[in-house]
């Protein structure tokens, strides 16, 4: 028996060695850089080839189609398989050349002429040229596809136009000057015309590149290409042997043989599997988990990074929507308070932001008084004041607004009605639930009866965006970019994320009108300093009029296996994988296959 067991073990080991040996040859070796390829040299990067990196994702990606993908996890995978014309460097937050090796802007800022890299190839070896760019934009702009990216390409209701000037030159014409227009190109993956034109012509574009697609049907310009999809378990991407970047020693990137996207399901599982060494990289860590990993030190070696304040801003918004015809009389009555600036100022003064940072973020967060946090170094208005919490100030404000207190401490308004309202928040966001509980306690010191109502995420969205059936909400908006332009829809009175009063025909207040003008102006302003001054004024108005009462922002926290080289997490999404092409495993190949 024993002998048989040993023998079979031996056989298994041998077989394992053979299979392992065979498999490492499966991954394509990087092609040697050719003479006529205009590759991008990443001068300050070095590393070594080999190994694979396992990433734990909270959910399963839904599609590999860059045009229709809406969810974050899909986009995270798609981003590794595809490339853009111009990229935002996550470390510097500035644009830099990608598939377009250079570009020229006309004097009026409306015409962009892009020079594409010559001689570079898609991951299936097919050449890339201007026709692919023209095709890609045709798809993104197609009304029948309703790509979420389409909205980026429409400025002032008019689409930008694309023209092919030469085999490697394309020209984009904007309907009007647009500040930082080149940032739009980040996130618009260039598609292979030779693979996708057929489904596009047949009207089956949305079904193309689903997860069930064969790897041979998919090609991109990113550092990796699809190797395998196992339903419910993982996506394996292997090196794109034709990738268009080289390191300082002229070695073609990426260094990694493979990237494995593992679907782990929950944040807990993400942490557990990182802790157990089953995944190598972890981002969007909560402070509790970050501290856990930092203190426990259960991983043999891990590198944890606290990058300081993120771009996410959490705030309370009071419902100031026009409720006529909505049958929400109870809320309409309360809107008298919500529309009263002094009421909002009182709430603002009563909030214990330090408490939020300490209790919600375990000190790994930063209090906020405006919509631009310290994480956005280019745009923050440092002049905005940071008043300390003062219940006394809050009481004064309420008193001057005609509120008073009953003998039992309850706050009543001028007409004798008790100040009593609910705060809704997403039940799946533990941090915001905690903020709500803290806020409730803070406001109870002012005699306000506040009820916290956690709602399932989509139920919350439905109330805030559709039915307006809520008093106040704690929400968060995360910027994909540090630029003010993506915020247009939040601050413009006609904007679709103008949460406190959606769908205004015209600005309801003077300060909203002023913000409208300022936002419009900054959009067309091409000079940074001028633009900054304009946007500073917007921040100033917002912090004075408090349509949102800002609370705090969490720090960006990430971690990786200690052996991962070139790990430079950034505040902008995707925090950890933006330089996937440069990541490598230290110590080389012998460690790579052991997991």
């Amino acid at each position, binding site marked *: 028996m024993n002998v048989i067991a040993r023998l079979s073990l031996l056989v298994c080991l041998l077989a394992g060695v053979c299979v392992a040996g065979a498999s490492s040859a499966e991954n394509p070796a990087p092609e040697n850089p050719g003479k006529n390829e205009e590759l991008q040299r990443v001068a300050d990067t070095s590393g070594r080839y080999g190994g694979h990196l396992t990433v734990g994702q909270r959910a399963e990606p839904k599609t590999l189609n860059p045009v*229709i993908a809406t969810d974050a996890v899909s986009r995270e995978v798609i981003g590794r398989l595809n490339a853009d014309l111009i990229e935002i460097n996550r470390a510097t937050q500035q644009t830099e050349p990608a598939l377009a090796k250079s570009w020229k802007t006309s004097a009026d800022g409306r015409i962009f002429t892009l020079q594409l890299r010559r001689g570079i190839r898609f991951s299936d070896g097919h050449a890339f040229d201007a026709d692919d760019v023209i095709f890609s934009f045709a798809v993104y702009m197609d009304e029948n596809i309703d790509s979420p990216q389409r909205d980026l390409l429409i400025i002032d209701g008019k689409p930008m136009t694309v023209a092919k000037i030469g085999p490697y030159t394309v020209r984009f014409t904007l309907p009007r000057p647009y500040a930082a227009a080149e940032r739009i190109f980040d996130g618009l993956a260039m598609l292979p015309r030779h693979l996708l034109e057929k489904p596009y012509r047949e009207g089956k574009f949305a079904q193309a590149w*689903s*997860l069930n697609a064969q790897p041979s049907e998919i090609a991109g310009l990113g550092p990796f290409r699809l190797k395998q999809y196992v339903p419910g378990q993982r996506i394996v991407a292997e090196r794109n042997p034709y990738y268009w970047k080289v390191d300082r020693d002229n070695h073609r990137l990426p260094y990694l043989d493979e990237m494995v996207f593992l679907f782990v399901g929950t944040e807990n599982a993400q942490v557990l599997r990182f802790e157990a060494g089953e995944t190598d990289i972890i981002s969007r860590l909560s402070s509790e988990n970050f501290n856990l990993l930092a203190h426990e030190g259960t991983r043999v070696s891990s590198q944890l990074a606290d990058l300081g304040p993120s771009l996410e801003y959490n705030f309370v918004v009071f419902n100031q929507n026009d409720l006529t015809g909505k049958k929400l009389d109870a809320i309409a009555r309360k809107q008298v308070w919500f529309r009263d600036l002094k009421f909002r100022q009182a709430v603002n003064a009563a909030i214990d932001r330090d408490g939020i940072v300490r209790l919600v973020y375990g000190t790994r967060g930063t209090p906020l008084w405006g919509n631009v946090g310290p994480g956005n170094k280019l745009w923050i208005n440092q002049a905005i004041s940071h008043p300390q919490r003062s219940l006394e100030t809050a009481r004064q404000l309420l008193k001057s607004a005609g509120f008073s207190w009953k003998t039992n401490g309850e706050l009543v308004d001028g007409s004798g009605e008790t100040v009593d309202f609910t705060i809704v928040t997403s039940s799946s966001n533990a941090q915001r639930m905690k903020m709500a509980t803290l806020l409730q306690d803070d406001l109870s010191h002012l005699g306000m009866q506040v009820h916290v109502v956690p709602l399932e*995420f*989509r139920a919350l969205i439905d109330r805030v965006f559709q039915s307006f059936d809520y008093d106040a909400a704690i929400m968060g*908006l995360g910027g994909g970019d540090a630029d003010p332009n993506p915020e247009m829809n939040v601050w413009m009175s006609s904007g679709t994320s103008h949460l406190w009063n959606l769908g205004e025909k015209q600005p309801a207040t003077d300060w909203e009108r002023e913000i409208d003008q300022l936002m419009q102006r900054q959009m067309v302003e091409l000079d940074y300093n001028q633009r900054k001054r304009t946007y500073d004024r917007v921040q100033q108005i917002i912090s004075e009029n408090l349509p949102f009462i800002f609370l705090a922002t969490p720090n960006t926290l990430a971690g990786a296996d200690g052996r991962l080289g070139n790990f430079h997490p950034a505040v902008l999404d995707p925090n950890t994988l933006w330089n996937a092409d440069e990541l490598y495993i230290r110590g080389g190949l012998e460690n790579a296959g052991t997991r």
Partner: protein
Amino acid sequence: MSYLVRRLVRGILLLAGVSVLCFLFTEMAPGSFFDEMRVNPQISPETIAGLRAQHGLDQPLVVRYGRWVKSALHADLGYSIAYNTPVAPLLWSRAKNTLLLTLTAMVLTWGISLPLGLWAAAKRGGVLDRAITVISSLLIAVPEIVIALALLATAARWRLTPVGGMVSSNFEELSGWEQFRDVVAHLTLPVVILVLCESAVIVRHVRASVLEVLGASYVQTARGLGISRGRLLFRHVLPVAANPAISLFGFSLAGLISGSMLVEVICGWPGLGPLVLDATFSRDLYVVIGGIMFSALFMLGGNMVADIMLMVSDPRIRTGAADAG
């Protein structure tokens, strides 16, 4: 009508009822798949409306139901909004994994709890009986999610088993035997969690129904005749005590698809659980409805098997059914 025909008719009616109510319920729940995009300031409401129209979400409920029935008859069970593929293959690729997990867990659960329940009842008040009472109370009192997380953490700390997924990432490179071992290693933790939570309930029921029968007349008589304890338990008590146990067994069978959702989500098991839960949150309606139809199908099968077993094990029921009919 014969039993099977009646069951079949009932099954079809049930599936129809479930599908109608599913549509009504999903209509009741606020929000839709594309609502998440509303939070992104860069996406316009027109785009969202366009996407809704593309997927037919703007159509009235009846129209959507009609389309779905048509698609269900083609064995597609509708079209996933998120995955842009038909639902049935999406579900089936994961249902296999769920079945692997739940069948293993079920066999172990019953293999453990049936003898334990019998033993506890036979030696009532003994050490084992008390231990079972305390342990099962503990398992019932502590929410499953906490038990699962605690076990998961233990496994991760002590490196006992892999803490998630179904196979290692180098699975394809392993030999057949190693692949088997790999799956077993990954299976261990979710199975242990499921077995612990389920058997706490079943042991108690088995114990209670065995005690009930032990008190019954003919068993007392047989005892008076000096029949051996083992023979008494297995020949006389167990067949009769099996009645509630069989109903429970039916539930085990019926819950094969739906019973392990939480554990699958926590352990990252690539089954239906994570898919359907994710779809529930994201309002990917047809995946949810498909998942429910799938589990309803299994429930029908499970209950039918349980009823047949009841008929076989308890001849009086057969006679009774005849009388009433």
